[in-house]
């Protein structure tokens, strides 16, 4: 399950909290739903395919896995920049979704070559990197600022629903049609193509009323200048700081299974628990963010995560502890994932919207990658309990730092 980093964008108009969401939000939600069915089908199938059908060694597999998860950060920046530069976020998003769809067809062609598979995975992830910032920019540009939290809530809920559906489709295919690779890749490709068609057909691009200026205001210099804006810089730093103490999901589940003592066979089901809570709570959390301020909700989400890590220290707690931890973990995602984009969006000037969102997302993603590697080293060097304790202490410091960075900022200044 790919739950770690997702993104969203913002909009600047009059603050309106009530009312309907634009149809573009639902259309983009449907695109994400279909694309996530496609992507998570592959995520569920890839280990079987690589380890069983192709019999790649686990070291090769580990390297590919790292590549798969780490390759997107830079492309996000590029996707955001190109999208702003061309003023065509929909076109760039389309290219990203299209690349990932084509990758599904390329897997069987790459055969058992480790380098070939790695190349296809990189291409697939490149598509994801490219499309994320322009997609979130499309959401913010279409939605009145006061409803951004809700808009991202709806989008993330639909996205997560697709992510839950994907593995089910894969299971059905494996059970009915066997572990041969072609049906999984073919069906995954179909879902990806459906997503592309919905994007092309139902997503309306927000066309700026002004004629295109002779010289585009969008340049690398202008994008770098985004970080000179205090508010953007601070939210990027705060998100990055908190990202540094966020343990990757996989580790959370492994540690949770070990300390709570729930049966090992439930390990594959733990991510489903988090996803279900995320799915259910995304819209309510988005509404809460619109109402009480996005930064406070984002911050509170991390406080909940701190609680989850604390729960990891309770040994032998069994199911009650495991359920409490999964509830908290899902709430953390609901309170932070789309909310960060809703929070950052209005701070970024409209012409630089996709780039600005990409900067915030990339900061967070890179921080989380570093934290994963770091936590891996901690686990190798000390006991699990000591490693979690250390993270817990660092977490408190990071929370304090983030609070300091954004202190004395009236909640509405960031919320609107």
């Amino acid at each position, binding site marked *: 399950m790919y739950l*770690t980093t997702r993104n969203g964008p913002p909009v600047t108009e009059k603050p309106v909290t009530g009312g309907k969401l634009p149809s573009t939000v639902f259309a983009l939600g449907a695109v994400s739903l279909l694309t996530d069915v496609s992507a998570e089908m592959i995520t*569920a199938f890839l280990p*079987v395919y690589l*380890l*069983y*059908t*192709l*019999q790649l*060694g*686990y*070291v090769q*597999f*580990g*390297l590919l*896995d*790292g590549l798969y*998860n*780490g390759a997107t950060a830079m492309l996000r920046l590029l996707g955001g920049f190109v999208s702003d530069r061309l003023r065509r976020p929909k076109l760039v998003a389309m290219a990203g979704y299209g690349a990932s769809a084509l990758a599904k067809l390329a897997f069987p062609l790459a*055969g*058992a070559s480790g380098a070939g598979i790695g190349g296809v995975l990189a291409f697939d992830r490149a598509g994801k990197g490219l499309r994320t910032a322009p997609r979130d920019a499309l959401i913010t540009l279409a939605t009145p600022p006061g409803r951004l939290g809700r808009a991202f809530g709806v989008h993330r809920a639909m996205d997560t629903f697709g992510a839950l559906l994907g*593995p*089910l489709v894969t*299971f059905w295919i*494996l*059970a009915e*049609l*066997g*572990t*041969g690779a*072609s*049906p999984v890749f*073919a*069906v995954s490709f*179909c879902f990806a*193509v*459906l997503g592309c*068609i919905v994007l092309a*057909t*139902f997503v309306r691009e927000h066309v700026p009323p002004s004629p295109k200026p002779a010289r585009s205001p969008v340049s690398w210099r202008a994008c770098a200048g985004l970080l000179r804006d205090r508010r953007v810089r601070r939210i990027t730093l705060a998100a990055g700081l908190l990202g540094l103490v966020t343990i990757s*999901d*996989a*580790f959370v589940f*492994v540690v949770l*299974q070990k300390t709570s003592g729930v049966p*090992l*066979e*439930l*390990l*594959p089901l733990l*991510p*489903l628990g988090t996803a279900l809570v995320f799915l259910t709570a995304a819209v309510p959390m988005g509404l809460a963010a619109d109402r009480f301020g996005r930064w406070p909700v984002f911050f509170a989400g991390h406080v909940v995560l701190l609680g989850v890590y604390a729960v990891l220290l309770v040994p032998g707690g069994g199911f009650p502890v495991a359920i409490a931890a999964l509830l908290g973990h899902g709430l953390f995602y609901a309170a932070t994932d789309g909310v960060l984009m809703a929070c950052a969006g209005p701070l970024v000037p409209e012409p630089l919207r996709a780039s600005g969102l990409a900067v915030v997302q990339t900061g967070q993603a890179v921080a989380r*990658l570093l934290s*994963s*590697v770091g936590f*891996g080293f901690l*686990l*190798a*060097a*000390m*006991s699990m309990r000591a490693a979690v304790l250390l993270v817990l202490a660092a977490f408190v410091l990071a929370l304090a730092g983030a609070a300091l960075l954004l202190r004395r900022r009236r909640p509405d200044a960031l919320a609107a």
Partner: protein
Amino acid sequence: MRWLREHRVAAGIVSMLLVVLAGGAYVFWTSASERGGASASAAGPGDLLFIDQSDGRDVVQRVRMADPGGPRQDTAERCQRVYSAGGTTVCLRLAGPGPSYEVAVLGADGRLLRTLGLAGIPNRARVSASGQIVSWTSFVTGDSYAVPGGFSTRTGVLDLRTGALVESLEDFSTTVAGEPLLSADRNYWGVTVAGDDRTFYATVSSQNRTWLVKGDLPTRTMQEVRPGPECPSLSPDGTKVAYKKRVGRLGSWELAVLDLTSRHEQVLPGTTGIDDQAVWLNDTRLAYGQVPGDGRKSSVFAVPADGSAPPELLVADASSPVPLR
């Protein structure tokens, strides 16, 4: 183009319908063209079991060991990894959405004795010669997210005499180079149990190093034998261990045989690229599954254990070989 712009929604809906119809037709056609339920029959001594890789259905098939190129017959099981000895069969197979997998332990009459949930992808499976000790390894891929080169395995052992289950060998105490191995990243895989139903060999790894360990089930202990080997397999007479070992630091593996008395290690020529726990067809010959690497599917190869000849193809489009004695 102009027509397309004016009828965007209609064109979108029509193309979506086309994709759904094409995908549905493909799935229907694939499922309709699958095998027509060949009659299943029980395997017996002198048979070689293996998993058929030709159509992705993972049916366990058998051939006569004396005639491995002869007719292949289906058995009743579908597995991703199988092993059988002493009348007990262990089958690692698809269990439910997720997709998730299970360990199915079957008695001599094909009766299901026990199923256990499996955390991860089926990897290795073994039954002791007496049929009493069952072990398996699964590959847990989630642990290593975003840590390049990281991975994790879970190895379980079930004693059918007492019903005692070891969920993970990580609960045993392990000594490597005279020191207890306690790091949280230790992993175990590829168990092979000796004729006494208590001594076993396995692989342990930590921080990118691997060791062959010798263990004792009742006392729950393991001791290093030597660094490097993975996926050990004890010969029927208990005098030799076959395993895979790395050619270079991160290179592919080759098959080697260690004489437990003389400590002489013999690398078997032509086995480079093996990634399997080999099985002993008898005291002098080994078999293993390998993807040939030229786009063909996994096949089972046989090789003499003394390194006197290169491997030869035993069964095409097959994996997980199991000689029935």
